[in-house]
């Protein structure tokens, strides 16, 4: 039996095949890992010009209060995330994470204040659990609606000019702004955000128009199709977490160095301090620090150090520190890059530790994240 038969397809599946993509199963979907250009060229294309990514496998969800008031939806979702959502201005987006009672991370997500409701984007692998989680805890106060729309990302330094040819107002958007717009007469939702470390956009498109809009973007000489392989190397260089690798229910937001995702209003002394799952542990770690921390790791040599490689304090592998959570080759860094968790005693940038690769203990230097300089238009 063909084991790809059970895989779901995004609205752009046929387009991927027509572009010669190599398809792989990812989070239950048949997705393009790379196109004929290959991961290296696709990565550099995105950093140097622009790339378009199909991220339609991600979950797009509307959270709307039964009262019809934004404030009620915001306060409801605040009971599940340590994020200031009430204070989120209309047309603005914020990163956040669902936490569990132990302070672990159930998923990370993007949260937008859109008109009188919330628009959230969650990871493909978690979307059913996330929707059930919201239904269970805030379903009495809010309607949770999963949208059947495509989502593409247009990322790279040329992205804004490419998109401005279709919709001139895009140039006025700032990082994390979200706007309704029409692209080729198709009603779309555009956010100036992404997962590459570059300036760029994520565009939510009605499923039946997705191929048309994506094809038009690909007609631009500065735009190429980019697969999941380069999406991963781009986000790794940008120091961004991949749920299931770098963050999960065993990691807290403070351990994961995601303090920036929690605003003053929700922290100790804030106007709405706590009130989310795991608040006891997370607020305590915000005040007192966690015992371990996610850090950047730069292997000294040329060998990539991959996820699950064990980290040691010494070159003999005697004192284990933790594990690499993501690692590979960074085409823009032109060398291997990784991240992982180490005790605070070894978390300072410049600390040399050792990663076990094929029985050898290779020196890696704890490094500030990101590995590249992001070009977000703040």
């Amino acid at each position, binding site marked *: 039996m063909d084991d790809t038969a059970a895989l779901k397809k995004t609205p752009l599946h046929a387009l991927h095949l027509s572009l010669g993509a190599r398809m792989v199963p990812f989070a239950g979907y048949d997705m393009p890992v790379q196109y004929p250009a290959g991961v290296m060229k696709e*990565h550099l294309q995105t950093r140097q010009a622009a790339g378009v990514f199909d991220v339609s496998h991600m979950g797009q969800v509307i959270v709307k209060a039964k009262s019809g008031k934004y404030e009620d939806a915001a306060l409801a979702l605040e009971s599940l995330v340590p994020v200031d959502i009430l204070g989120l201005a209309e047309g603005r987006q914020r990163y956040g994470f669902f936490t569990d009672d132990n302070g672990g991370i159930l998923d990370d997500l993007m949260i937008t204040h859109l008109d009188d409701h919330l628009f959230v984007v969650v990871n493909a692998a978690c979307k059913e659990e996330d929707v059930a989680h919201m239904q269970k805890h805030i379903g009495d106060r809010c309607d949770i609606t999963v949208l059947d729309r495509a989502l593409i990302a247009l990322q790279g330094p040329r992205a804004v000019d490419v998109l401005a040819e279709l919709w001139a107002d895009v140039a006025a958007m700032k990082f994390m702004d979200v706007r309704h717009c029409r692209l080729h007469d198709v009603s779309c939702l555009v956010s100036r955000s992404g997962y590459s470390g570059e300036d760029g956009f994520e565009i939510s498109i009605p499923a039946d128009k997705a191929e048309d809009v994506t094809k038009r973007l690909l007609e631009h000489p500065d735009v190429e199709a980019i697969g999941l*392989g*380069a999406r991963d190397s781009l986000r790794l260089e940008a120091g961004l977490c991949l749920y299931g690798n770098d963050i999960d229910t065993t990691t807290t937001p403070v351990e994961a160095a995601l303090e920036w995702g929690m605003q003053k209003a929700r922290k100790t002394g804030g106007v709405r301090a706590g009130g989310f799952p795991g608040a006891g542990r997370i607020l305590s770690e915000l005040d007192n620090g966690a015992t371990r921390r996610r850090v950047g790791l730069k292997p000294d040599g*040329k*060998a990539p150090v991959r996820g699950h490689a064990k980290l040691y304090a010494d070159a003999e592998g005697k004192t284990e520190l933790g594990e690499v959570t993501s690692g590979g*080759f960074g085409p823009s860094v032109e060398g291997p890059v990784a991240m992982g968790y180490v005790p605070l005693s070894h978390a300072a940038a410049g600390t040399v530790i050792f990663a076990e690769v*094929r029985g050898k203990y290779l020196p890696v230097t704890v490094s500030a994240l990101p590995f590249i300089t992001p070009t977000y238009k703040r």
Partner: protein
Amino acid sequence: MLKFTEEHEWLKIEGGVATVGITNYAVDQLGDLVFVELPEIGATFAKNDNASTVESVKAASDVYCPLDGEITEVNEAIVADPSLVNSDPQGAGWFFKLKLANAADADGLLDEAAYRELTA
């Protein structure tokens, strides 16, 4: 004499010494190589031992020793520039030279036609 393995290595055998590399097909599957680790000169391997490692942007893969033998030479050029393996896998991108323990062992490997059929 040119031979192939089912693990996508090629061997050019001359006077009991095989020059070994990975095939066009293997390179196409692996994608852009970013790291190559070669065996030590003088190391001896049995058939199917892990003799070398290649890494693409995405993943690491083992290169197996195709026959019993001793490493007599390695291609340091592909360590300095792994993209040589992508651009010329069956030429300048060779990995190592192996002095065969038993030259007749090569008879059991695939010839070019059989390998083509395998990867068609």
